[in-house]
Every structure is written in C-alpha cells, then in structure tokens.
C-alpha cells in the first residue's frame, strides 16, 4: 500500500512538472524573465523618467534626479555571482 501511494505521489509530481509551463505557475517560467514592469516606470520617448534611487558600487544612494539636464546612459545587467 505504501509503495502504491508513494508511486502515485511521484507520478503526480511528474505530471505537474510536465504541465508547469501550461499552468498559472508557468507564467514565471524560462521565457518571461526579461519582461517585468516596475510600477510607474513604463517610460516613453519624450517623457521624463519617474524618480528612482539606486545604490552605487560603494552602497551610496544615487538619485536619477541628480542627473537632470545631463546625458545619462542606463544599462541593466544580471550579476554573475555564484
């Protein structure tokens, strides 16, 4: 009996694993990671960026408003830490 129950549980997990991309859980799968929206941060050409503050490499806060009137290049990179 225990063997059958364990086997059924494993089979159910196997089916869930196969079905993951097609379930509501799958919306966070492999293809969707680069498409997220920061609330209020959907910028358009010709419009001002919303105010935001980030930390520099020394941990000091940097406000985007500090660069008003200057040319700013924003890049987004994933970290490669292990």
């Amino acid at each position, binding site marked *: 009996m225990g063997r059958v129950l364990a086997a059924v549980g*494993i089979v159910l997990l196997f089916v869930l*694993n196969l079905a993951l991309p097609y379930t509501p859980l799958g919306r966070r799968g*492999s293809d969707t*990671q680069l498409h997220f929206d920061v609330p209020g941060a959907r910028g358009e050409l010709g419009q001002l960026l919303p105010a935001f503050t980030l930390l520099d490499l020394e941990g000091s806060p940097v406000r985007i408003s500090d660069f008003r009137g200057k040319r700013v290049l924003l890049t987004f990179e994933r970290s490669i*830490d292990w």
Partner: protein
Amino acid sequence: MKRSYLFLCWTCGVGFLLIGLWLCFAALQSRGPDAASILPFPLGPQGYYFVAFSGCALIAWGGCLVGAARGHGSRAIGTATAVGLVLAALFRMLFWFLGDLAWMGNVLRAEAAVLLLLALAFVWLRPARAAEPL
C-alpha cells in the same frame, strides 16, 4: 565490532541528515523575499542550486546510513534514495518557477523529470520486507 559499526552508521547518518536539512533550508530561505543568508559565505542563485542539490544528496546518504544502522538493509537504500531524488526534483521545479536560473531554460524541468522517474523506479522495484536480505 558490529555494535560500533552500527553506531558509526547511525551517528554519521543522523549528522548527514541534519546537515542536508540545513542546506536545503538555506536554499529555500535564500529564495525568500529580503532573506539574509544563513550560510557563512555569500552565494548567488547558481550557488544555492548546488547547495540544494548537496542537501538532497546528504539527506539520501544519511537516510541510507540510518536505515543500515536500523537493519533495514537494501529497502532503506531504495527509500532514502527515492526521497533524495524527489527532493532534488522539487528544488529543480522550484528554481524553474522562480526564474533565477532562467538561462538554463527547460533543462531544470528535464532534470526533474529524470530524477522523478528514477525515484519511481526505486520505489517500485524496492524489495518486499520478506525478501530481505538481498
């Protein structure tokens, strides 16, 4: 001699189980929001992926040792290995869902599928109690 051997199996098994549980908990806890690492060194998602796998392997290994110490023989090996494989598959599904290892694509789900099939084989082919010892 045999008593000291069984004692060695039991103590090492329990130690491995505890360390494995700790590593699995650390991997789970690291993926939570605003979670501070409980490990003494900084790790990223890839590091915690391997921490989780090491934890699952230690749980399986510890389970085998404890089972051997309790005289359960090869049945304990099948059970403990199946538990470790299922845990490892669950962690792969979790990491796929969280998307931290999105660059791996569906490799995580493929690995989970293989691990679950192996776990199913270990459970299904496990000898009955009367069949001991192999």
